[in-house]
C-alpha cells in the first residue's frame, strides 16, 4: 500500500466532523450526530466511501478551494483514529436515544475536542494510541512509524 496521506483530506474530514457535531448539539439533533457517526464508521471500514473526503476530492480540491498536502505517512493510524471517534459517536447516540442527554453530548464533545486537537494543534490522539498498541505488539496494529 502507498505510504502517502493527504493532510488536507484529513483536515477537511476533521472540519466536517467538528462542524456537523456542533450543529447536531445546537439543533439537539440526535439524527445528525448519528449521520456523522455512520459516515465516520463507513469511512473507516471502506475508505473510498468516506463522504467528507469525497467532498474534498471531488469538490474542494478541483475548485482549488483547498490545496492538497500529500506527505509520507501511514494511513492506518488515521483510519483507526476516525474509527475510534465513530465508535464514541455511536455510543453517544445510544446514550441520547436512551434519554441520557448529558452523557451523550459529553461523548460528542469529547470527539469534537479530539478532532479539534488534531485539526488545530496537529496532535492525533488516535494515532498516538495506535502506535502505542503497535509498540506493545497488539495484533492488527502492524504499522510502526515511518523512519
Amino acid at each position: 500500500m502507498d505510504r502517502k496521506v493527504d493532510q488536507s483530506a484529513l483536515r477537511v474530514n476533521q472540519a466536517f466532523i467538528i462542524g456537523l457535531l456542533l450543529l447536531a448539539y445546537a439543533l439537539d439533533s440526535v439524527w445528525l450526530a448519528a449521520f456523522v457517526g455512520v459516515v465516520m464508521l463507513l469511512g473507516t471500514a471502506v475508505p473510498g466511501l468516506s463522504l467528507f473526503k469525497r467532498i474534498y476530492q471531488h469538490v474542494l480540491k478541483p475548485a482549488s478551494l483547498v490545496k492538497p498536502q500529500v506527505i509520507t505517512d501511514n494511513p492506518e493510524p488515521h483510519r483507526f483514529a476516525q474509527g475510534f471517534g465513530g465508535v464514541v459517536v455511536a455510543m453517544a447516540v445510544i446514550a441520547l436515544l436512551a434519554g441520557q442527554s448529558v452523557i451523550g453530548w459529553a461523548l460528542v464533545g469529547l470527539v469534537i475536542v479530539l478532532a479539534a486537537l488534531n485539526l488545530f494543534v496537529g496532535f492525533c490522539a488516535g494515532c498516538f494510541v495506535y502506535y502505542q498498541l503497535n509498540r506493545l505488539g497488539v495484533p492488527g496494529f502492524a504499522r510502526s512509524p515511518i523512519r
Partner: protein
Amino acid sequence: MIWERLLIILILGLVGTGAYTAVKQRHVRRLNRQITPPSGGGRPTLLYFRSETCAVCPTQAHYLAQVMGDEAGNGRVTLHTINVDHEPDRAKQYGVMTLPTTMLLDSAGQVREINYGLTPPHKLQQQLNTIGIGA
C-alpha cells in the same frame, strides 16, 4: 433552546481558543525567561524536535530542508535538530509536548514562534518573513 446551545458553543469555543493562546504565550515567555538559546552565530535559529518513532517527522525534515534550501543557502538561518530519544532532558527543558515541534528564535535568541505538530513550509516561511528573513 437553540440560542442557549449556540451560546454554550460560543463560550466554550472562546474559552478553548483563549486557553490555547494563553498556554502558547506562557510557553514562549517561560522559554525566553529560563532557556539559554543554542548558539546560532547571531543568526535566527530554527529548533526542530523529532524522534525515531514520530511518523510525520521525516516529512517535517523534508519541509525544513525545503525552507533551509531557500534561506540557509545564503547562511541566514541556523537549524538545530534535537532528537528527543537521545536528549529527553532537553525536550523537557523546552517543554516539548508533541512531535514534531519547531521553534523559531530571532537573532537575539528570543523565541518568536512555537509550532506544535507538522508545520508546512509556507507557514515556516511566513514566520521567517516576520523576523526579516526571506522575500
